[in-house]
């Protein structure tokens, strides 16, 4: 009843092949990029740090303003500390950080900023009050800054020199004030 008919034997037309291969290559490129990103660690020493803005908690200010930008800190050594009130290891270094601030802050050569990672304001304030933190602190809104630094957790501290180049990454809490000083003194003396 149904007659056989032989359709033309032709291969895949060129336009279809191009589309298929382009799509395949695009997919592989995206996956490769994703893989590279997953394998990347934090930002590494030697990289120039772009400008970012940290809005401070009310009650904190920097030179009369309620936000701090990386650019205006150029010329100073910048210490950025990522922390959270729900992070137990952060408490281990909080007192030392404040002590370090009290030592280095008055010199005018070092700027300390604290970026609160994924936290709630009431609990953050309790934390700051508990350790008597006085250096500028603010929430890392939309986690923009921590995403830029590609932090893997808290606490992490980043040391940036006067030219804005990252010099040292501290993953985890500082063991002592001495350890902190051993990192920052060489940077100041450069």
């Amino acid at each position, binding site marked *: 009843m149904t007659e056989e*008919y032989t359709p033309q034997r032709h291969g895949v037309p060129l336009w279809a092949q191009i589309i298929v291969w382009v799509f395949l290559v695009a997919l592989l490129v995206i996956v490769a990029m994703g893989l590279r990103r997953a394998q990347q660690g934090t930002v590494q020493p030697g990289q120039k740090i772009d400008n970012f803005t940290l809005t401070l908690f009310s009650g904190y200010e920097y030179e009369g303003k309620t936000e701090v930008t990386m650019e205006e800190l150029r010329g100073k050594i910048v210490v950025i500390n990522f922390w959270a009130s729900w992070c137990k290891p952060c408490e281990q270094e909080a007192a030392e950080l404040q002590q370090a601030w009290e030592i280095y802050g008055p010199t005018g050569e070092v700027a300390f900023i604290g970026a609160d990672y994924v936290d709630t304001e009431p609990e953050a304030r309790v934390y700051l009050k508990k350790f008597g933190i006085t250096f500028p602190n603010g929430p890392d*809104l*939309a*986690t923009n800054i921590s995403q830029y630094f590609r932090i893997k957790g808290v606490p992490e501290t980043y040391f940036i020199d006067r030219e804005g180049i990252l010099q040292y990454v501290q993953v985890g809490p500082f063991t002592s004030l001495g350890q902190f000083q051993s990192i920052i003194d060489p940077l100041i003396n450069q």
Partner: protein
Amino acid sequence: MKKILSSILFVLILAGASASLVFAQDTFPTDDDVNKIAKQLYCPVCESTPLDVCPTEACRQWREVIRTMLTEGKSEAEIKQHFATQYGIRVLNVPPNPWLTYFIPGVVILIGAVMLFRGFQLWKKPLVAESVSDKDEAEQVQQDEYLAKMEAELKRRK
């Protein structure tokens, strides 16, 4: 007289107090109210865990934030916006711009459907052509028969 006045005052105060109590109970957000919103958010720290079921201390704090904001009378959209501003849009369970999310799959599916129906047409065409030619043949045969009849008739008439 004094007694009556003070009793009335007492009753009024009591009424006022219980009224405010009732009022507070009506507006105090229950766990269910909090969960309704937390369900639509993801824990900012844990992997792919919805905020209403996340067991960590931090999540507990975030749920209390929701409760506080509900007490202040904030709407669901405002609360979600607050979380997005604070922690990034990744804490929302759908991207805020729906266009791109739905558009691409929609286009691809449409292309697939078009390809399928074109395929249907392509596969059907030869048979349609054949049936047309069948019809032609049948007509041709009919015509031949008619002609033959005509001839025969004409021959007889001759």
